[in-house]
């Protein structure tokens, strides 16, 4: 049994008119997503903006309630739980946010921030604030400072320390490095890796940066317009991507090597992702897909296994081997 598992997860939001506040439709931010994270594993969740990956993150941690489908943590469906029933679960299920500054209350000192987990859980602190700081590479004397006195990287370390305070089993990292400079990104990614080794954590790592996902994940799922189009082990995905979208995505990432960059065959997708308000029929990627055929407009491809652990939702998956 997986530590965290979702079945047919759906989240719809009402869309309101800007002026009249009238409901004019519905966005299926997440439309039937199945995911599983095993103990000690890192699931990378990748996709472009608006693909629903962050919504999945909020559903996994129950910051949002799913419209339908289940989220099982440690075998228990946490979807319908009330806030007070959820509280013990939250000890095991923590989050690191994208923007370290906006996720740290500017009015609280680091000490207050790092003792908040215990206070909110009604627990005695098991670990002094100073130790938590040291664990994430900060100095104990930082405890009395306010968030704005730190650099972005340092602040993100505080966010990580807070997430780890309760010794969770799974940490959801929602774009943890995309707000940071490249040099700091590397440090944070290394820190996450070290902590995983040390504490046996599981991660769900949400990012749009394929390089960062590759760096930390053991398994990767690719999302497009609210659905998972492909999921596989890291090496399988980056080496033998089967979905045309995954291919396009990988080919679009510029590589810091002029020779590679200039020489390579590039798949440049046409147009923009369609609006999730009115997604295309059948395969959602068909409007931009170089391989689209008539069937794609009619039949929605299901996620099927094409190799052990490698699942893809496409009528015409790539069969290439490296």
């Amino acid at each position: 049994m997986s530590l965290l598992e979702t079945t047919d997860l759906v989240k719809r939001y009402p869309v309101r008119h800007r002026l009249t506040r009238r409901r004019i439709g519905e966005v299926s931010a997440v439309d039937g997503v199945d995911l599983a994270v095993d103990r000690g594993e890192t699931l990378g969740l990748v996709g472009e903006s608006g693909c629903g990956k962050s919504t999945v993150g909020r559903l996994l941690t129950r910051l949002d309630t799913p419209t339908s489908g289940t989220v099982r943590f440690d075998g228990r469906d946490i979807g319908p739980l009330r806030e007070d029933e959820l509280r013990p679960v939250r000890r095991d299920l923590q989050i690191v946010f994208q923007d370290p500054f906006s996720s740290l209350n500017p009015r609280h000192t680091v000490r207050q921030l790092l003792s908040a987990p215990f206070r909110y859980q009604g627990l005695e602190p098991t670990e002094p604030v100073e130790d938590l700081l040291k664990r994430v590479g900060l100095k104990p004397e930082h405890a009395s400072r306010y968030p704005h006195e730190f650099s972005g990287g340092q602040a993100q370390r505080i966010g990580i320390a807070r997430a780890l305070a309760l010794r969770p089993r799974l940490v959801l990292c929602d774009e943890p490095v995309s707000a940071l400079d490249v040099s700091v990104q590397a440090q944070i990614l290394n820190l996450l890796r070290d902590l995983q080794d040390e504490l046996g954590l599981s991660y769900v790592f949400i990012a749009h940066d394929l390089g960062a996902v590759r760096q930390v994940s053991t398994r990767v799922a690719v999302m497009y317009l609210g659905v998972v189009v492909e999921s596989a082990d890291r090496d399988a995905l980056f080496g033998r991507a089967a979905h045309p979208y995954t291919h396009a995505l990988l080919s679009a990432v510029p590589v810091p090597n002029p020779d590679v960059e200039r020489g390579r065959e590039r798949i440049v997708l046409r147009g923009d992702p369609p609006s999730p308000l009115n997604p295309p029929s059948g395969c959602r990627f068909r409007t931009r897909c170089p391989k689209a055929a008539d069937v794609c407009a009619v039949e929605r491809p299901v996620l099927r296994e094409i190799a052990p652990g490698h699942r893809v939702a496409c009528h015409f998956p790539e069969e290439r081997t490296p």
Partner: protein
Amino acid sequence: MTVLPITRPADVPPLRRLLRQPSAAVALVVVVLLVLMAVFAPLLVWTSPTEFDSAAVDPALGGLPRGAFGGISAEHPLGVEPVSGRDVLARIVYGARVSLLIAVLATLVSVVVGTVLGLVAGFFGGVVDAVVGRLMDLLMSFPSLIFMIALISALPEANREALLVLVLGGFGWPYVGRIVRGQAMVLARGEFVAAARALGAPRRALLLREVLPNLTTPVLVVATMSIPGYIATEAGLSFLGVGVRPPTPSWGQMIASAVPWYAADPAYFLIPGGFLFVTVLAFNVLGDAVRDVLDPRSVRR
């Protein structure tokens, strides 16, 4: 990628930054002096604000003060009221008590009510927000001055000061509530609130520990900015005859009673009017400076 960090020039304490602006420093001094004057009124003047001095006015001239500039003399440094001969200085000093107390208490009422309702509305949204929002719309659509006058003249005379505080605060809180609601709405969707929720924080803690402390700045700014408005409104109500009861002096009342006299004895309206102007100005300058110092939005500008 460039990310705008939330910069807060907190290295210098706010008060010191406030005092660095000369105008704000002067305003602060004026406000402090006024408050001291109001608090220590009995020590400052020995004359009673309600004592008649018929020797200081000339009945043959309709009660015009004897002497120049509204009867300024050693005995009456700011002159006397026509007809009654009451000491203007004493009335100014005691009037400051009434004016300031009402303004401060009305601010308190509006800030407390506005913050609580605005916070709840902004944080919870939905039905609560709709109800509070409607209430604020309603109160802000009221022709409040007309209604205040009608209301005050309709209610029993029991305690005019308390009534004024309640009415001013009652019509004033939506302006606080609107700001708090907007901020609370943004904050409630903020990541640090999500982080606290993820840590299992109960709602009460979210409201009081996470959101509320971040509202102190806008609330403090709007409170400082609203005091001069209340001073002026209280004076206006007194001016229109529904302010504090005589013989309690209030600046608005003094100006109102000076209206028929403005041509015969201009000093009589210039003195309380001047005090009122200086007070309102000082509070306005101060409020402005407080906003500049505390509001990151204006710092950026």
